[in-house]
Structures are given as C-alpha cells and as structure tokens.
C-alpha cells in the first residue's frame, strides 16, 4: 500500500491533477490523454474503427482521460510502427493495426517486427469476399477460375504487396487462373471500379461492397474464411452474409483474414496492458460496437496474451511465405 501511495503522490506531482488519481489508488490508469495511432490515412477501415473506439469510450465514460486519434499513414504505416517502437515504456500510446503490421516491414524492409512492440488484444478479424459484377457471366468460383485460364482477369485491390495483392497471388497459385492486379488507393474505390466494369473481380471487405450488393450490382462468390460468416439477417432479397459459401467449399483453398488489433510500445508493465484489455472488453460489450461488427460482417475472434502472440507468430510466418512465393519481399 505504501508503495502505491507514494507512486500516486509522485504521479500527482508530475501531472498536477490529484483529484482524479486519488480515488482509485490501487490499479494503474492513464494520467494524461492517450494517443491512439492509426497507421493509415483518415477515412479507411482502421481509422474508422479507431474513431469508433474513441467515441464509445467518450460516450460511455469508460476512461477518465480522453483518447486522441492520430493518423500516421506515411510509408504504408511504417511511420506509425517505427514511432511506437521508439517510444519504449510509454503507457499512454496505443496503436491499431491491420495487415500492414506484417506486409509493410516485409515489403519495404523497414526495421520493424510486431515483436518490437507489445500486443494488447485482437479485437476482430476482417473478412475478405470474392466479388464479381452482377452482369458478368460468372456465377461460381469454378466458372471464374475457368475464365481465368483462357483470359487474364483484371483484379482490383487496395495498394500493392498488401493483403488484396497477396490474396490475388494466392488464388492464382491455388487454381492456375491468370490475373492482372491493378492497385487502387482505397477499397471503396475498388468496389466502384467493379460496379463500373473497369475490373473483372475484387476481394473487397464486406463493409466496402455491401451497399453495391444490396443494390444488386455485385455478386459474392465465396468468403476467404474457414467458416461462413455468422450473420443470418438477409442483406438482399434472397441472401445473407451467412449464405456466402467458404472458398474452400468451392474448391478454392485459400484462407485470409485481416487483423484488427491493439498494440502498445515495448517496456510497459503487465498492469498497464491489463488496464487496456479491460477497457477494450468494456468497449466490445457496448451496443455500438456490436452494430459495427454486424455492419462489417466481422469475424469476432478476440485473442489476448499468449494465444494472441502465437497467432501473430503464425500469421507473420504465413505472410513471409506468401510474400516470398509472390516475390514481394524487399531485397
């Protein structure tokens, strides 16, 4: 008790805010605003999730200090990763990640690995769905693959040497279909290009394509997950997310999910990590969060601690393999 009291006093002296800390002297909690880095620009999926978390925390009063979201999208997120890596021991800094956690260091060679920072919690996994234009003749994966053997299919995706590109190469490897991959800046743009007929197919996330699906402009062929998505509410007149078959069941043996997880700098204490895990659990219990999950048809797997680390280890190795096969590794 004496130690923690002294720590409290020191903390008070440092931040000149005795009032808020004195009440809960035992557990650690933030003593100043928490920076929340987004390794991408404003408006994308990661940014949106970070700002939703910020809003939920503020609305439900889950934390006494505010969260401040900052976009550090330079170099496909390398800017954010390197900055978090440098700020060892800073417990007032969170980072939301996507697949660029693996792909950016591998593709660009910037000196960073996920193990340079502290994994806090996996919040969800983002699904990928194989889409074609409704007016295209392809009604199933088999038909699309067959077409890909006689002609080069134009596949649009977000960025280069990133998740969409990796999936494209993996599909080609698994089936022998030929693709011309065209990188765009964002997933929304890709979906519109598909509707406009400028590309033949895409692997958009559900949230990027759902509105066009509802409007009957695009057709989902399969989802790159091991199980169908658990959302049985009808989206179109005849189909729900749950009705989309897995790619594996359609003879396309490729699985890919994108991490939406939270990290902290290295050198933080167990107590501090615990605090944020509890906070994120409270966020995940709110109706707003559940609505976001249903809207984007997210895979709601949430891991922490050793399980999360094992997952990261495995995924990093898988990305290394996929990217090495595709020739995407930095030389």
């Amino acid at each position, binding site marked *: 008790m004496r130690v923690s009291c002294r720590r409290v006093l020191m903390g008070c002296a440092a931040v000149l805010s005795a009032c808020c800390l004195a009440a809960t002297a035992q557990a650690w909690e933030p003593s100043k605003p928490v920076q929340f880095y987004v390794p991408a620009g404003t*408006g994308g999926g990661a940014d949106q999730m970070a700002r939703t978390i910020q809003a939920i925390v503020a609305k439900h009063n889950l934390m006494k200090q505010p969260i401040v979201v900052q976009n550090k999208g330079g170099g496909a997120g390398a800017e954010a990763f390197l900055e978090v890596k440098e700020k060892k021991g800073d417990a007032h800094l969170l980072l939301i990640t996507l697949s660029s956690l693996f792909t950016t260091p591998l593709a660009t060679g910037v000196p960073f690995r996920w193990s340079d920072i502290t994994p806090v919690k996996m919040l969800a996994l983002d699904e990928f769905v194989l889409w074609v234009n409704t007016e295209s003749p392809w009604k199933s994966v088999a038909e699309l693959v067959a077409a890909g053997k006689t002609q080069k299919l134009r596949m649009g995706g977000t960025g280069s040497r990133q998740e969409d590109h990796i999936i494209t190469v993996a599909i080609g490897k698994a089936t022998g279909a030929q693709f011309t991959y065209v990188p765009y800046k964002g997933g929304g743009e890709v979906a*519109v290009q598909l509707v406009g007929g400028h590309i033949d197919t895409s692997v958009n996330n559900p949230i990027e394509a759902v509105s066009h699906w*509802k409007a009957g402009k695009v057709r989902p062929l399969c989802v790159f997950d091991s199980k169908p998505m658990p959302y049985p509410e009808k989206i179109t007149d005849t189909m729900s997310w749950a009705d989309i078959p897995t790619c594996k069941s359609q003879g396309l043996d490729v699985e890919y999910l994108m991490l939406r997880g939270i990290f902290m700098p290295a050198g933080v204490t167990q107590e501090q990590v615990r605090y944020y895990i509890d906070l994120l659990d409270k966020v995940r219990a709110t109706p707003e969060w559940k609505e976001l999950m249903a809207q984007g048809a997210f895979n709601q797997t949430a891991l922490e601690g050793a399980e999360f680390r094992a997952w990261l280890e495995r995924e990093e190795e898988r990305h290394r393999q996929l990217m090495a096969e595709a020739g995407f590794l930095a030389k």
Partner: protein
Amino acid sequence: MSELLALFHGFSIALEPTNLALMVAGIVLGVLIGVLPGLGGANGVAILLPLTFTLEPVSAIILLSCIYWGALFGGAITSILFNIPGEPWSVATTFDGYPMAQNGRAAEALTAAFTSSFIGAFVAILVITFVSPLVAGFALRFGPAEFFAVMFLAFASFIGLSSGSPFKTMASMMVGFLLAGVGLDTVTGELRGTFGSTELMRGFNFLVVVIGLFGISEILQSVEEGLTFRGREGRIDLKAVLRTWAEMIRHKAIIVRSALIGCWMGITPAGATPASFMSYGVARRLSRHGHEFGKGRIEGVIAPETAAHAAGTSALLPMLTLGIPGSPTAAVLLGGLIMWGLQPGPMLFVEQKDFVWGLIASMYLGNVVGLLIVLVAVPWFAAILRVPFPIIAAIIFVVCAIGAYTVNNAAFDIVLMLIFGVLGYVMKKLDYPLAPLVLALVLGDRTEQSFRQALLLSEGSFTIFFSNALVASIMLFGFVMLFWPVLSKLWARKEPSPA
C-alpha cells in the same frame, strides 16, 4: 416532383432549432478551421467526428458538413490577405486574389471569393437535388484511363499560362513532380526517394510545401522590401460588397462555366483542387484580358472559387450514392456515416430518406447562412491588413508554423516549411513561377497512379486513352488546350487582339 416534396420534408428537418444551431456553429468553426492553414477541413472534421456520436445521424452530418462549407469559405481568406492558401483548392485563388489585396481591393476580392463560392455551391446543390439519379451513375464510367484524361486536361489547361520563360515553367513543374514522387508508391508498394529517412516516408505534404513556398517566402520578401504591406489604404465597408456584386454580374459567363466545370469535376470525382486550377486556366485562356491575369483581375478570383465550391459540394454526391469520397474531407464524412450506422452507397437514397434530404436541405440553408456570416465579416477580415506589418508578420509566421506542424503532427514539417520558404523566395527572385510546382505536386501522384493503372489494364497499350468516346473526347479537349497558343494565333489572323 417527388424531389420537391422530399426536399420540403428535408427542410422541416433541417429547420429544427437544434439543427439550425448546429449549422451556425459548424459554419463558424469551419471558417476558423479553413483560416488556419494546416488544420484543414479533413482534420477538423476528423477531430470532431467522435463528438457527434451522441447526436442523431442527420444532426451529426449537418454539423460536420457545415464545417466543410465553412472551411471551403474560410480557405479563401488567408489566400487573399496573406498569399497563404489555407486549403489546396484555394491556391489558384492566390494568383489574383493576393495582388488584388495588394492593390487595395482586399474587400472586393473577399466578396468576390465568398459570393462565387456560394454560387458554385448553389448550382451544385441544384444538381444534387434534381438530377442526382442521372449523374450518380456517371462516376461509374470513370476508370483509370478516364481519370488520367481528366488530370491531363487540368495540366493542359494550365500549362503555358505563366508569362515567363517556358523553360522555367517546365523546370518548376518537374520539381513538383519529383517532390510528388517521394514516399510510398501505390502501384509497386515500394518506398521511393526517401533515402532511408522515416520523416520522408510520408512524402511531401502539399500543405507544408505551400505554406512555405507562399507564406514564408512572402514574409521574407516583405521584409526585404522594408516591412510594408501594400494596399492598406483600401476602403473597407459593406458598400464594397454591393460594388463587387455589380462587377460580378458582368462576369456571369465565367461564373456559369466555372460552376459547370466544378460540378463535373466533383461528380467524376476528381476533386475541388484540379477543378479550381482547370477553371482558372480556362478563364484565362478565354479572356480578352488573359495577359492581365495574375496582376489582380477579379475573374481570377471568381473562376477558381466558383469551381472549387461547386466541386467540393457535388463531391458529396458520389460519396452518398457510391461510397467513394471526392475529397479528403468527404472520406472522413464517409467514415462518419458508417460510425452512425448508415451504409453509404446506392441504397442510402432509398433507405434513409430523412437523412439524405435533411442533409440536402441543410446544404441550401448552410450555404446561405455561411454567405451571410462571411460577408458581414468582410470588413473585419480586410481590416487585418491595417495591423502594422511587424506585428502581423510575426503572427503569420507562428500560424504558419502551427499549421505545418498540425498537418501530420510532425516537428520535421516545420523545418521543411522553412526550407520551402527559402526555396520559394529564391525562385521568386530568379523569376521561376511557383504555380506549376504546386500543380504538379498536388496532382502528380494521382496522375501518375491513374496513368500506370490504365497501362496495367491495357497491358501496356496506349490505345486505352482513346478506347471509348468519353476518354477520347477528354483527351482531345486536353490537346486543344495544350496547343491553344498555336490555335489562338490562327484565330488571331481574323480578329486582331492581344492573345
């Protein structure tokens, strides 16, 4: 007529007292955000986004879109008064707006800018209200080749505008392209030109460069010229507003043309910045007084402001109907829609009638309220120029530094801003035009990307740029603009005029 009924219903939503109050608050905040270089509409909206979580979606979008309108208005203020564009699309406004202020016509320039912004926006809202089903699908026809053609047109209508040496223009533009290439290359996923530096990974942010090139270099130049701001004597009262309106009526052709260019660029969606440059270029090309542009012609303020605002407003159409953002701010608003539980895209107009029409009604009201607020404030804005230069210079310097820092929250950008300030000063002294550099920097990335995407799709064949009527006609129009000096000489034989 169903649109009119829906619109009136929308007005009943937008006129609720809370929504009206949010509208005014949003406009005022937006103007402030637009005035501060660096903060910008996108950042401003992103910061406020989480605060709107507790509001009704329609109230939230009214607040945020009014910040957007306010920022569009506010961006012109610093461009005209201090030659510092607060937003990318107000760069073209500096070309004639700042000289006007220096000639003692700051109030006229501001009035012209605000009024033409308003008209541009209003035309765009009419387009959104009545022809949205027709034009919403237009953006679908735009693939990479079409985007490149539009960018080509923007460059072509602007190139050769500077009166100086063509070689200096080319050199300046090439520096712009070079700077635009730094950072992550979307097409290959590789880092370019960063020399291993983490700071350069972000690439050169347009605003940081512009704050330095325009703002800081202007201060350096004023210091050299003996710490004076020219044009302090200008008469500043509300009569200036009426005088300017009378003058603007004579330029109605330019206004209509610029509004159309803006709507088209917003819907495609190529964005407000290329729209403003293109519109300025075209106005100058087609004007009898083309050679006087850049010295303080009011048309040089009207054209870019009308187009920028028309584009900025109509950019909301592809955002709502297709889920593609036409501007960085629209991208943040798009994230907001999803946060509030709405799904942007073709079904929004069907499923969320109250939301969509409430928003459209708030656009009408927001722009009227915005115009009134900024016009009333014109004398005060213009009066800033009466503050002694040593004081105002110090304030501008600090605001510039804060602005440069805010863009990416990076102290390194302040250093960059200073370097570009010196570069801008040297370029002015050696008579190199700054505009081509800025144009290449702001559009270079997008242009290069569309060009390479198009060639990927065509597997290297250039015929893709002439593969359908749409892209071919834009390209052709681009070539006409490019070779205009030659063509206009052919015309000049019939009708002698100083081209």
